[in-house]
């Protein structure tokens, strides 16, 4: 989910990153750089990695109320380090920020939090798992059973997550390449969460159930200099199969794509660059810009030819670095639902 790297790319000064681009595989300003063949250790790797520059816990969920109304939910905690270390107190170089959102067919509620590490305002602990910023929290006895809360000025939610399948590793056993130049991250997911709970919205409390997808990713390298933005899909088909795919847009008009096919049992099949295709079909005017809210996605080798449409075109995340993120409906060869994230549309 390198789109978040883009967010950070905008948030942090470009100069700080320049050295990272220049020497691939070398350490960037003392930060550790992902390496192919890394052995993940759990629960330790569910926690934070302060020696890496950027990291996130990224959860999206497709929900349904008892009356059949579809909803979407997002809970994202980002960590961004100014230096590869953690310190107690105000001097901590770790900055945390988080986005929470609830999307309904008619409305999109967003809230944002920012904090620094070291003083207890935000952080992540591996065991028992606890990720928090202010009053927002994702915590539980282990990574398979989590409680999720967030509040905004006009919404709140309280959810229970239960894993129904194994963790899956993106790219080459969790080493996810993001450009032809070789920028990469550590990337694993839990796409098999069952979720239920209560959405508090201005119109009242709503009981919902559905499925959720949690992404974990950390790195010290951002996008390549010629990459301008990102379209990311996480789709769950009615067959029980799932697919993650992303398309990085380049300044020269070309794209770099990657993806993973996930069987209902959690077996993975990574896509090389070019296997996953996504083409914008319908543009909508959102927040004064043209955003593709309808897509045609094809993966010929899997027989996938689907149309992906936003549940609510206005799912604009109006935060410090704004982007589009919301639930989608899938029709065509593989009907289903999922989440779509698009960044870098100016």
């Amino acid at each position, binding site marked *: 989910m390198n789109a978040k790297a883009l967010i950070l790319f905008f948030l942090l000064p470009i100069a700080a990153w320049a050295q990272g681009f220049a020497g691939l595989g070398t350490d960037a300003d003392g930060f550790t750089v992902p390496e192919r063949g890394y052995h993940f250790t759990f629960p330790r790797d569910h926690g934070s990695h302060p020696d890496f520059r950027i990291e996130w816990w990224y959860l999206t969920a497709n929900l349904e109320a008892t009356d059949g109304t579809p909803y979407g939910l997002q809970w994202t905690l980002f960590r961004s380090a*100014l*230096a590869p270390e953690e310190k107690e107190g105000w001097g901590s170089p770790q900055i945390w920020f988080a986005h929470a959102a609830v999307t309904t067919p008619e409305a999109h509620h967003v809230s944002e939090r*920012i904090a620094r590490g070291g*003083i*207890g*305002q935000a952080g992540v602990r591996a065991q028992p798992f606890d990720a928090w910023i202010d*009053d927002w929290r994702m915590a539980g006895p282990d990574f398979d059973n989590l409680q999720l809360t967030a*509040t905004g*000025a006009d919404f709140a939610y309280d959810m229970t997550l239960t894993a129904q399948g194994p963790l899956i590793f993106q790219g080459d056993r969790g080493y996810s390449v993001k450009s032809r130049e070789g920028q990469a991250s550590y990337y694993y997911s839990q796409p098999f969460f069952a979720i239920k709970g209560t959405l508090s919205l201005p119109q009242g409390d709503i009981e919902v159930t559905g499925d959720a997808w949690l992404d974990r990713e950390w790195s010290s390298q951002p996008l390549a200099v010629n990459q301008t933005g990102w379209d990311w899909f996480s789709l769950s088909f009615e067959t029980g199969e799932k697919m993650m795919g992303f398309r990085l847009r380049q300044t020269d008009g070309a794209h770099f794509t990657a993806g993973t096919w996930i069987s209902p049992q959690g077996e993975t099949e990574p896509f090389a660059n070019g296997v996953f295709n996504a083409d914008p079909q319908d543009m909508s005017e959102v927040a004064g810009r043209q955003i593709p809210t309808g897509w045609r996605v094809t993966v010929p080798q899997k027989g996938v030819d689907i149309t992906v449409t936003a549940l609510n075109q206005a799912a604009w995340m109006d935060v410090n670095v704004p982007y589009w993120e919301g639930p989608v409906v899938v029709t065509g060869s593989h009907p289903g639902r999922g989440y779509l994230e698009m960044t870098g549309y100016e």
Partner: protein
Amino acid sequence: MIAAGLSALWSHWWHSKLQLVTLLSGLALATALWSGVQAINSEARASYDAAAAVLGEGRFDQLVPANAEGIALDTYITLRRAGWQVSPVLEGEIGLGSTRARIVGVDPLTAPGGSGTSVLSAPPEPQEFLGDGVIFAHPGVADALTERVSARVVVDTGVAPDTALMDVGVAAQLLGRSDLSRLIVATEQPMGLPALSDIAPGLIRQSAQEGAEVGRLTDSFHLNLTAFGLLAFVVGLFIVHGTIGLAFEQRRGMVRTLRALGMPLKTLIALLALEMAAFALIAGGVGVLLGYLIAGALLPDVAATLEGLYGAQISGALRLRPDWWLTGMGIAFAGTLIAASGALWRIARMPLLASPGGRAWAVATGQTRRWLGLAALALAVSAALALSLGQGLLLAFAGLGALLMGAALALPTLLGSVLAVAEARAQSIRAQWFWADTRQQVPGLSLALMALLLAAAANIGVSTMVSSFRITFIDFLDQRLASDLYIQAEDERQAAEIEAFLAPEAQEIMPLLHVDTRLADAPAELYGVRVGATYRDNWGFLDGADDAWQTVAQGDAVVINEQMARRAGLWVGDDLTVAQGMSLPIAGVFGDYGNPVGQAVLSEMTFLQLYPDIRPTRFGIRVDDKDAARAALQDFGLKDPQIIDQQVIKDFSLGVFERTFTVTAALNVLTLSVAAFAILTSLLTLAAIRVPQLAPAWAMGFTRASLGRLELLRAVVLALLTMILAVPLGLMLAWILLAVVNVEAFGWRLPMFTFPLDYAKLALFGVLAAALAALWPARRLARTPPADLLKVFSNER
């Protein structure tokens, strides 16, 4: 044609350079006084704004600790983790050699938009600011800070004076503190927020409005200054109006000739307007620069006054701000326009064939005098209406303005009547001629005399206010600082030890119990005191029973300060709810000058019933030998700053007042000088008209020397009459300032004291100034060659 026209117009000024100097200096002086005062104001305001903006004062609510201690970091985290969107602020002071710097630490990550680092002229990215961080410092303290700290210090003019803005972590390190001073509450909060009292009971939420209290107090000080500036400008306008009027009147012949020779009227008016605009430009520019000098000289005193009175920090150094350049030039242009429009209008309406001398400038017709009288009456009525009906500071100032203008316009009529009486009573023919001739002079001198009247009245009014304030304040200080030493204990345990230690030594020990709370729906300070001889003997009341302190001591009553009384509409005999379930009658209302917050005072016993957990940490003591007591306390283990000599506080407070006086006195001298200058220029310009008026008297046997002496006497008489009339006007002004403006602005009313000797001195000074101003014109008159006097007759047809 235009060049020829301009050369003709310009030739007039070249020919009468004195008139040109008068016009330009009058306008420049008026602009200088106005823009000088404005410069002081805008500098001070910019300073407060910078200080308030960092903390979002006036825009965001704040959480402040209920007692004097700071807010623990844990409390902040507890609030955040409960969802409260609050941002930490840590404030403190550090010494930097001879000066001190105010340290303000903020958290750019959580600061609500518009507070924190966004006040800087070049706001940094968060990562530049965090961690080892950059310190943004006001130019005044940047150098000293650079020597003191290792972090990079960046000079930023957006930072308040004597202040350095930095990350809260950097501030904590610099100040050696681990707590926080206050929390800014963001406007937008998440839904379902738990109550503050449940999660942080030690904190009080202060609304944005309350935080701006100091701002409103200082506003009133500036309003006073602005009024002074405006008054000075009006005085200046009288001069300019007079000079321009005369200059146009003298050029009526030229205007007629130019038109007869074929210059179109419109072109002529345009050229005259252009000429005035050029003068406004020159005089305005000089005026703004002069104003800058005045402001530069006065600002350190103003800064000290404001800091001493209200704790508001402003820079003692002045910056040339484009906005007051603009307003200064604007007021010069507006003033010239006002002063010249009448004259231009008369030129535009003058028939081509009218005799150029047809309307003598200096002779007010019966009709204009009637108009002046009517206008004066209308202004007096509106002043009375504004003051009696209205509420609010602006209306009070409007009433003040109407009163002054009305009085000024009534002056010629009043002087005329007095002189008519004198003329009727004159015995000798010489005296009769003198009075009649003086009366004839009044219209020509009226503008200058009005300026003198206003300057003198402002002088009397403002001095009376400030002196009354000083007398009241000294009394107040004596009563409030009656104890000899004031002791601040480190904690409650030490306080108890000190009290035990002092019991045999001191005549009287007065522990001060204190809690910040809300009374009568406003933030207030509640005190518990041990009523003894000191309170009974020294602490008087504006209104209250003789045994007020006795009833307080018995726990049967409370006394409150005037601010609370006026704000809440309470007075002696009313009941005040001092805590839930306890209501006490108010036994007295005491004056409490310079304090914006309401205060209520209970007996120690009653206070401890309400707040059993609070122990005093401060004491006042009365001792026979102050030095011995101090030495004993030091031996006991108290550090020097813990023992405060009340005399020092008193001296400091009085020092602040002396500064106020400096500013007031300087402005007084300036306005009076402007008025004297008006008299001088009026007399000089009148001199030409005087020759034909005096020639008959000379022909009938007055010597030129005696005519010159009478000329001087005439100026003295007119100035004296004006000064006498200025006294009641000034007293009215003082009354409005003390009884109306002060109550509106500060919440207290000051008793008015009069200072007849000062007024007499002022009158003497005014007359002296007028005499000095008249000396040169009179001398010139006395030396008028007889041929010039003869010409008067030969020219007559």
